[in-house]
């Protein structure tokens, strides 16, 4: 599930939010808005880390050269 936005972008934005909250002289309103966005992104990031077990699949090319992804039972 390579999602949009990517996990890396998610983390980057989170760090930016924290930096701004820590450094900038913000209105309480702006600070609250940033905080809420940060909390939401944090929740999404945690959600993406919640998968139970790595899925293992196998890539197979048939004679026509088409790719298929199948479950792998090794």
């Amino acid at each position, binding site marked *: *599930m*390579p999602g949009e936005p990517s*996990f*890396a972008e998610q*983390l980057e934005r*989170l*760090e930016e*939010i*924290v930096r701004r*909250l*820590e450094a900038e*002289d*913000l*209105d*309480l309103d702006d*600070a*609250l808005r*940033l*905080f809420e966005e*940060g*909390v939401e992104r*944090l929740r999404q*990031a*945690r959600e*993406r*880390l*919640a*998968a*139970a*077990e*790595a*899925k*293992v*699949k*196998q*890539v*197979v*090319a048939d004679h026509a050269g088409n*790719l298929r*992804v199948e479950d*792998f039972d*090794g």
Partner: protein
Amino acid sequence: MGVTLDLFAALAPEGAWTVSEVTRQARAVVEAGLPPLWVRGEISGFKAWQSGHWYFALRDRASQIRCVMFQKDNRRLPAAPADGMQVFVFGRPTVWEDKGEFRLTVVELLSTERGGLWQLAFEKAKAALAKDGLLDPARKRPLPVHPWRIAVVTSPDGAALRDIIAVTRRRWPVAELLVVPTRVQGDGAEQSICDALALLGRIEGLDVAIVGRGGGSREDLWTFNSERIARAVAGAPVPVISAVGHETDVTLCDLVADHRAPTPSAAAEAATPDRSEVLAALARLGARLGRGLATRAERTGQRLERSFDRLAAAATRRLERHRHGLAALGGRLDALSPLRILERGYSVARDPDGRVLKRVAQFPPGRAFRLRVSDGEVAARVPES
């Protein structure tokens, strides 16, 4: 003249050997008398034929032997020897009847120079790769920090794959492993690995690839010194981690890959972050987020407080001013107090209902009234005329 004729006549034609008979006999004698043996010498006049067979001479200062090494035997070698190279060959001495030539049929060839043919092949391919800039460290791509799709180019039933799956499940179970099955040694392995690497570009959302196999003999691992494989690795659309299970020998595949791991397990570790560490980092970010907002709120609170203080101070000042005003007013009121006037000798007359009597007409004869003086009241009456 006659002598010559006599000589021929003296020999029965059936007593002469044919060429074939001699060469066949020579071959039998040579093969019976000289068992397969190791021979040491210098390669000379090397030629590889279209058929894949190799022809060369082996010589020392005084002599030389013609040699042939057939394709079925030489294909196991990583490279052809070069003229002037000192080698050991293991071969069967024989006579080639069609040419009447004494020869050695070589089945094994070892170079006595350091690293031998393997090294020669390795250096040749390495030089070709270096010439194209493929060994430049600046080419190496950073590995993604949080990979979601990891391709594994290896044998589907090798220990390498099991190790990679186990490590990934332990460290980063959110990833998806895509096995691209391939042969990793023996005939066809080179082509199979190149084909598998070529598939990588067609896998959607791929973040990183691991190419490798578990440990094995030098010959087993030799496939990963293929220049073709090295070029396929360099051309991969995502960063490649090479894991050819050998701690000491570095393969060409290792040199070209974006990251070299000594074992498949180490490759999986390099490819993945530790989920618990990522979660801990998220928790730290969450804490900073909370603190950041708290600081922000506190600052705002302080600002409000300061405003409030100023407001309160202003109010107090106003109040003070009013208080002074009131005191002055009180003084003035005091001065106006009727009691003060009474003290000065005036008095107030009121009827029994308390109404102030201010005019003569309000005092008919016999009218009873009360007089308020400074320290009390007295009853009074208007005389009856």
